[in-house]
């Protein structure tokens, strides 16, 4: 069983500070939805409002179509996985997992059986009688997931649960979480500041900044078609040019900057020009359009790609990322080159969602 969640014009104030500002989003049943944003952007507050630990100041939250305002956390069909997991250290693993069932009056033998099943589901056999302190970080993670799944929630809420793990384990757990979500069909709402996590796991991502939802889209669109400068620069790297739009037509425009005039897409309001480093091509000769002459300052070999930093005559720093296919020669610092980009890969975007938008 899973349920959808509607946030309808939700606001949350702490004193004079507005932590969440008119957030609207419909999350589908069975969807893996991530809220992505820097710390302090209000994403954890959204999670706490859905789970019931915080009440919205304005707006309506519906879970499975039902208004849940005023319901205590223990009355809502949600289960929250805390950032620090909050496992009960004085109970053995199986009692941790079965705690929600114990609360519901399930007899002991049944609880134990269910705990073993859930342990199998999260790939942790033979750990039922261990104590929390005997498990590794990744194992604790799984126990926390199993404990939340035990109460058969319609919605799972995850508050950056992977942030305490090391990189390898984190990547492994990403796949694991995704698999568990697909297996159980429960709606997952995932909070993170790590764009890699959000993009890799989610069906859809909501990017947040300063309490506002900037963009809700699937991971590809978030990365390829950001709606504004905040989304573009929070998710991935960019070369950013300030300037002025000239002769806009058919979604394209010329953009006059101190570095030169470029052709680029103009999907919406005017703002700055954004070009991702991997869309920059490095060549010896200048191209007809969208070409920037640079002196290379640093060439960092990262293995699968090469990060090339350059500086223009006007002193503007540029960065290009080249795939390392093993045969292309790698340029060296000090060389005079041109960074060239396709107009379709460059976008003029407004700064960020403005109040009332």
């Amino acid at each position, binding site marked *: 069983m899973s349920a959808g969640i509607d946030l309808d014009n939700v606001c949350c104030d702490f004193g004079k500070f507005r932590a969440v500002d008119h957030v609207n989003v419909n999350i589908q049943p069975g969807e893996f939805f991530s809220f992505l944003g820097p710390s302090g952007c209000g994403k954890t507050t959204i999670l706490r409002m859905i789970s019931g630990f915080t009440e919205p100041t304005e707006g309506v939250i519906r879970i499975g179509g039902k208004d849940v305002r005023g319901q205590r956390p223990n009355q809502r069909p949600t289960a929250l996985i805390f950032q*620090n997991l909050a496992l009960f250290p*004085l109970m053995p693993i199986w009692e941790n997992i079965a705690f929600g069932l114990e609360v519901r009056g399930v007899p002991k033998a049944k609880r134990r059986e269910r705990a073993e099943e859930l342990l199998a589901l999260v790939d942790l056999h033979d750990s039922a009688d261990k104590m929390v302190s005997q498990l590794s970080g990744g194992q604790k993670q799984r126990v926390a997931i199993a*404990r939340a799944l035990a109460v058969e929630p319609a919605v799972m809420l995850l508050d950056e649960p992977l942030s305490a793990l090391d990189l390898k384990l984190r990547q492994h757990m990403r796949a694991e979480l995704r698999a568990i979500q697909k297996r159980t069909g429960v709606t997952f709402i995932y909070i993170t500041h790590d764009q890699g996590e959000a993009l890799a796991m989610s069906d859809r991502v909501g990017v947040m900044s300063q309490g506002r939802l900037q963009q809700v889209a699937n991971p590809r669109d978030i990365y390829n078609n950001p709606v504004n400068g905040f989304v573009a620069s929070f998710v991935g790297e960019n070369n950013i040019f300030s300037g002025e739009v000239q002769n806009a037509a058919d979604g394209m425009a010329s953009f006059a900057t101190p570095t030169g005039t470029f052709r680029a897409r103009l999907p919406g309001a005017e703002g700055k020009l954004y070009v991702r480093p991997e869309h920059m091509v490095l060549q010896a000769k200048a191209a007809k359009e969208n070409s920037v002459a640079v002196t290379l300052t640093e060439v960092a070999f990262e293995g699968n790609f090469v990060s090339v930093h350059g500086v223009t005559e006007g002193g503007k720093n540029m960065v290009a990322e080249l795939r390392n296919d093993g045969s292309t020669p790698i340029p060296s610092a000090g060389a005079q080159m041109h960074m060239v980009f396709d107009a379709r890969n460059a976008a003029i975007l407004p700064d960020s969602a403005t109040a009332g938008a």
Partner: protein
Amino acid sequence: MNDLLRRYGKGLTWTFIGLTFFWLIILVVLPDFKLLESSFRPYLPVKEIGGPKDVYTFNNYLQIFGNQVDFNFFGLHFPLAARIKVFVLTIFYSGVVTLITFIMAYPLSFYLAKVVSPKSLPTLFLLLFVPLWVSEVLRSFAWYIILTLKGPLNVFLMTIGVISEEIRWIDGYSPVVVTLVYAYVLFMLFPLYNAMQSLDSNQIEAADDLGAPWWRIHWRVILPHCKPGIASGAVMVFMLSAGSLLVPAIINSTTGNWFTQTIQGIMLEGQDWNAGAAFAFMLLLFCTIAVSVAMRVFRVSLSDIAK
């Protein structure tokens, strides 16, 4: 040790170690040892000390069995030596004091550690501390005045019409229990508050989120976490209560004798230090046993308490 030497130099280090040893050995261990030794000797006139009659004996300890009286323990009647009766009641009511302080301190420490905003915490702690600035003697006398027959409590209760006749509060063990609770409740509160404060609030929220009602959150998550704090508070309150002389001496009724008063009577009024020492060691021994048994029952170890 090397750390100390490096930090404070030889002179200071040895001075402080010496002073600590002096305090421990000369002021604590030796006098206690002398008392223990003399508790096994008979009470003799000065001339006969060291003489042929001065031999080691258990007679002082056996004195506790003298003077059979009827013991009425909540309706259960059986004959018991008068001093054992006082002894049993002292241990029992010290337990009652411990229990009451726990019942009072648990909700208060939960409130202080998890509910109240940190801003008002210093004020609340100050309010808790203020009574400690007044000496225990004065506080005991204050309770004596409150509980006395024509005292404020009776006057108040009669004015609002709850009782029509004065109640003799200073009767039996209740005034001692009340005053001991008042005197020692903070010794329960602080360890409990410390334990409560070290609990990750997320665990409470997690239990709440999993559907647990408030009492189950306390029973399964908060109380087990606080066990070491409860144990150390309980040991302190129990030992202090059982060993308190001042409070029962001030506020006790004739029907509620405390064992420390028995010891005082033997030592100061009877001038029999040998028997007094024997009784004091019995009190120490049985309190220690009571505490160890309680710790075994509640599965707490000594190292938990030291934390």
